[in-house]
């Protein structure tokens, strides 16, 4: 089972994600440079965090114009599981694969801290192993992480069950405390917090079990016995 980890100039969580996919969850992962194409038979794609193009102009916007995005769009339409984490989420939003926009945090600061997420939709390839409303301790690390949608879009998101994660408490001022969303089909998921930073007990001061379920959900979806 092959998972593609997409690397843009300035991605910086690509190696962390790769380590978790391969060393922790025994997946067969492969890097894909943003100028390359993605194979049609790939099983899942992850867009890792970082500062693609130095976050210039707006986080994610320049990377959203990369050649590889077209392939990701095609795979998304085919229903292939696609996960964007942090900058990956920003890129998915800026390329129109997910609704909404990520704005500067209300604090105007980069925020690096642990926080709690609540699972709001356990019907995606990355959340199917969770119980609904399950709590996930997880770190965030971003400057432009305030998810924003207008009221109409928010209504639609709720109707179509596209809100995947909410923060337990107000963290950065995002609309309706949203921390992660999916597309209408549910196969494209974007989230600001970093699951790859929370699945190994050594570096997780709280509890590594819940975040692992994000990857175990993926394993389950793409058909690998863990």
């Amino acid at each position, binding site marked *: 089972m092959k998972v593609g980890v997409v690397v843009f100039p300035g991605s910086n969580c690509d190696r962390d994600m790769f380590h978790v996919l391969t060393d922790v969850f025994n997946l067969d992962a492969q890097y894909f440079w943003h100028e390359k194409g993605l194979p049609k038979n790939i099983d899942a794609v992850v867009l890792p965090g970082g500062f693609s193009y130095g976050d210039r*102009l*707006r986080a994610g*916007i320049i990377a*959203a*114009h990369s050649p590889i995005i077209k392939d990701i769009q095609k795979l998304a339409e085919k229903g292939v599981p696609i996960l964007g984490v942090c900058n990956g989420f920003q890129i998915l939003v*800026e390329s129109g694969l997910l609704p*909404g*926009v990520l*704005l*500067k945090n*209300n604090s*105007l600061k980069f925020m690096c801290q642990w926080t709690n997420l609540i699972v709001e939709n356990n019907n995606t390839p990355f959340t199917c192993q969770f119980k609904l409303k399950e709590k996930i301790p997880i770190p965030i690390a971003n400057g432009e992480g305030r998810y*924003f*949608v*207008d009221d109409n879009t928010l209504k639609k998101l709720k109707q179509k069950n596209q809100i995947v994660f909410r923060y337990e408490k107000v963290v950065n*001022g995002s609309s309706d405390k949203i921390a992660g969303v999916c597309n209408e089909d549910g196969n494209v998921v974007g989230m600001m917090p970093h699951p790859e930073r929370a699945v190994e007990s050594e570096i997780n001061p709280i509890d590594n079990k819940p975040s692992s379920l994000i990857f175990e959900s993926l394993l389950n979806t793409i058909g690998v016995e863990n």
Partner: protein
Amino acid sequence: MTLFTISVTIENKPGISDPEGETILNDLVLKGTYKTVSKIKTAKMLKFAIKEKDKTTAETKIRKICDDLRIYNPMVSKITINVI
């Protein structure tokens, strides 16, 4: 062909909050002795140097660039274009 300098100002649409402007106003300006300021809005500006045959073409081109490349996010921002 003439070289034009064109500025694009990207600012929040009305109704979209501007925490940065508010912070500068409340935590900096109003803290001091400057009580006559009632609002601050922040914006980002890009100044393009572009070679086109005339002003209108240049301006149209710049608008097209901004829309096509999503130089601004229409969900939250609007732009104002000025030929300098």
